[in-house]
């Protein structure tokens, strides 16, 4: 009887463990079944490299190249802004922060990580957009605004992962550096940071993933014009924004083209995941 129960429960545990695999398979299946035929119908090249997106024209034109570029530019901008600040803040927290200040800094970073993206978007809308409008002109909803906002949003990811990487470097490295006569700063920048390289790279890749997948905050500040990005101060539309803005009223091929947009986004995420696992393997 007990043996019987043990086996049944083992099967239950096993089924639970398979749920996540099933979920991932279902997600891939539904996205690809609904998205790939549309890509084929539009023409893979026309879809991926087409420079205009006009679903309301007759005949409709579905080219998502502007959105691909938009996502890549904004993500690159976010990385350029967020990575230096994030990594250096992690250096501060590990090597400079006195204990009393650390007790404030650590929860502060956790708070930044927990703030919902709509609140970030709202913050961007009421602070960064007017600021850019006043300083540089234009409408304020632009590639630059979105990059700054995303740069802020990826900070907590970069800071906490980099900090963990820096703390994982053996203290003997630091002591060795000092013993050779190098200053605190030189030891940190020439010994500790290179030693924590793979962890810091991981933090950057994680941040990139978060930036490219971000939706709500971006649509509130990026302007969302579906045209080729031209200039930092012009509006752009990202892949994520394209999906959420038009999904509400899209039908037929238009709808499928939006799902195909998600497939492209999904492929980007898979590439990022692949990078992550390569980094992890190298760290081991």
């Amino acid at each position, binding site marked *: 009887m*007990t043996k019987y129960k*043990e086996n049944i429960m083992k099967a239950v*545990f096993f089924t*639970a*463990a*398979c749920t*996540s*695999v099933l979920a*991932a398979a279902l*997600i891939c299946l*539904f*996205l690809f079944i609904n998205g790939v035929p549309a890509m084929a119908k539009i023409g893979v090249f026309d879809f991926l490299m087409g420079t205009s997106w006009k679903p309301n024209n007759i005949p409709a034109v579905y080219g998502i190249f502007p959105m691909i570029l938009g996502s890549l530019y904004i993500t690159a901008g976010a990385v350029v802004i967020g990575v230096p*600040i994030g990594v*250096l*803040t992690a*250096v*501060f*927290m*590990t*090597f400079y922060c006195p*204990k009393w200040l650390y007790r404030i*800094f650590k*929860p*502060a970073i956790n*708070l*930044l990580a*927990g*703030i*919902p*993206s*709509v*609140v970030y*978007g*709202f*913050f961007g809308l*009421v*602070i960064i957009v007017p600021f850019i409008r006043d300083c540089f002109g234009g409408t304020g909803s632009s590639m630059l605004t979105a990059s700054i906002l995303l740069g*802020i949003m990826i*900070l907590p990811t970069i*800071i906490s992962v980099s900090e963990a990487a820096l*703390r994982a470097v053996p*203290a003997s490295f*630091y002591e060795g550096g000092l013993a050779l006569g190098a*200053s*605190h*700063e*030189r030891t*940190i920048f020439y010994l500790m940071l290179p030693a924590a390289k793979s962890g810091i790279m991981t933090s950057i890749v994680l941040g990139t993933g978060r930036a490219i*997948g971000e939706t*709500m905050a971006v649509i509130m500040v990026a302007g969302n014009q579906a045209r080729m990005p031209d200039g930092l101060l012009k509006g752009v539309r990202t892949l994520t924004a394209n999906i*959420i803005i038009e*999904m509400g009223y899209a039908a037929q091929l238009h709808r499928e083209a939006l*799902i195909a947009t*998600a497939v492209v*986004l*999904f492929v980007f*995420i*898979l590439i990022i*995941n692949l990078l992550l*696992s390569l980094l992890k393997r190298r760290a081991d």
Partner: protein
Amino acid sequence: MQYVNKALKERLKSYRKRPVSLLLFLPVMISAAITMGILLLLTGYIIVKGIPNIKPDLFSWEYSTANVSLMPALINTVLMIAISLLISVPVGALSAVYLVEYAKSNSRLVRIIRITAETLSGIPSIVYGLFGMLFFVTTLGWGMSLLAGACTLSIMILPLIMRTAEEALKAVPASYREGSYGLGAGKLRTIFKIVLPSAMPGIIAGIILAIGRIVGESAALIYTAGTVAKIPEGKDFLLDSTRTLSVHMYALSSEGLYLNQAYATAVILLLTVLAINSLSAYLAKRLTKS
């Protein structure tokens, strides 16, 4: 290891002889100041603008364009959290039990589960939302509903619950299990009476993190749970369309008509995040103590 060994004054003095070190020291300080400054600006601005706008009207039971009440959204958020957790916590905890207690650590299945869980945790919420719309809303025919939203979210938080539960189970000392076996308990009894209870604080910490994600989620919900600002009621309440607090906040700020109420909603969201963070920090502290 504590690296901070010099007082600031002493350090500044030593830079006089070492200009390169000063050059490296300054950006570090500036970056830390920027990070802190951003947080203070964000929270400060929202709190200053939001607190005066928190009025009793915002908490009236029914939403109308006159009071722009956030009460229905607040209750929907709680419902959404409850249903999502009801689905994903048992699944996540049980699968962690399988991974830790049953599976051989390098079997092919375990590797596949790890890889899929990692992939799932990297997928952006908009993709979850789209999947939820295609699968739960359209294919299963639930329409935009509380249930469709909760199912979408429970898939989204599953990797998080799995990972934290797995870590918690692994942290249970092997001697506990051996002691239990030694007293004649079977594997199942050991798992449910010894291992799971000892891992509970860690599992709860994961649940709290998951609650944080649900509260903040909006992109995955707009096309799965919809945006109706009403508390679901009646027999089929699971199939009613609902908006959570984050979606409510998005609706308010994108319409642009109710900025004041949006500030107030932002304050409520910030306070929720703060409460969730403090709770998990408290739990983490208790965990490391024991």
